[in-house]
């Protein structure tokens, strides 16, 4: 049996205290960081933040312009179809749900299910594209375009910019679908898949701010 040393040097005592202090401080910290992980790639999150900032400038600009041209904006909004906006909101929210379900299936390693859920998400997103194109055509037929007035300049700029983000998101989802269908995600890091999913949710997040600003308020 090992006996305890009868004499502990001051240095050893100091070291012991440091070790105890260290472990007491780092253990909760380690636990905290072990349990929490940012989904996706860090670079994608910086890209998402940049996109959110650009849209924030658009939204604030729209609100300020409305306050400066109240009558013009009321007349302009009356020419839009609130039902078209509502259909697009439901389409993007539902599409986002299927992408979230696909991410869950991804972690369950159900590659085929992931592919099918992503296909459904894209088919629902097509509803958004069709409705938006119909809305643009309806306005063009009524003789309204980007140069009609400040309201329609901002309306076309913001919604077309968002439309392009939806298109890019659909390309990303398509690539994810092909990769999942071919089983190329098996035993691979989830980071790429999560990044694509988060981008799609960002597109949805932007629309839920855009919708009340342009169609409801």
């Amino acid at each position, binding site marked *: 049996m090992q006996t305890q040393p009868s004499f502990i040097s001051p240095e050893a005592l100091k070291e012991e205290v440091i070790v105890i202090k260290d472990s007491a401080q780092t253990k909760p910290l380690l636990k905290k960081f072990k349990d929490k992980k940012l989904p996706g790639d860090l670079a994608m999150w910086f890209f998402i933040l940049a996109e959110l900032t650009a849209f924030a400038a658009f939204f604030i600009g729209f609100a300020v312009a409305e306050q400066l041209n109240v009558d013009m904006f009321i007349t302009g909004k009356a020419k839009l179809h609130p039902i078209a906006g509502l259909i697009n909101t439901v389409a993007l929210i539902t599409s986002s749900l299927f*992408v979230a379900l696909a991410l869950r299936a991804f972690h369950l390693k159900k590659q085929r299910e992931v592919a099918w859920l992503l296909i459904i998400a894209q088919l629902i997103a097509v509803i958004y594209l069709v409705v938006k194109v119909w809305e643009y055509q309806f306005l063009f037929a009524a003789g309204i375009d980007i140069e009609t007035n400040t309201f329609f300049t901002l309306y076309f700029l913001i919604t077309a910019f968002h439309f392009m983000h939806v298109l890019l998101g659909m390309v990303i989802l398509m690539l994810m679908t092909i990769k999942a269908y071919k089983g190329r995600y098996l035993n691979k890091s989830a980071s790429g898949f999560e990044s694509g999913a988060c981008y799609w*949710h960002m597109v949805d997040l932007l629309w839920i701010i855009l919708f009340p600003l342009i169609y409801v308020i």
Partner: protein
Amino acid sequence: MGKQSPLNLNKTEYRVHTKKQLLFSWLLLLLCTLISVVIGEFSFDKNLMIPAALFMVFLKGQQISDIFMELKNAPKNWRFLLLYYVFILPAVIAAIYLF
């Protein structure tokens, strides 16, 4: 050896939400959308309608970032960055409309 989770996640990975939680969140998002449309259609008081519609934006944004983006289990600085966005931006817009 303890029973392994079907998700097979180790401690370094975050937990994903259940199917039930995702569906509940989706229903909440649809309900908030419907409420904001009803508020916009039938409310005549601008001072009440604008904060109510923008509060719905905050609720929806919270659901999307926390549940769909899975930021609820992400490091809190990232989570709150998105939550601040969906809170501060509608608040600024409301201030522009109301003051």
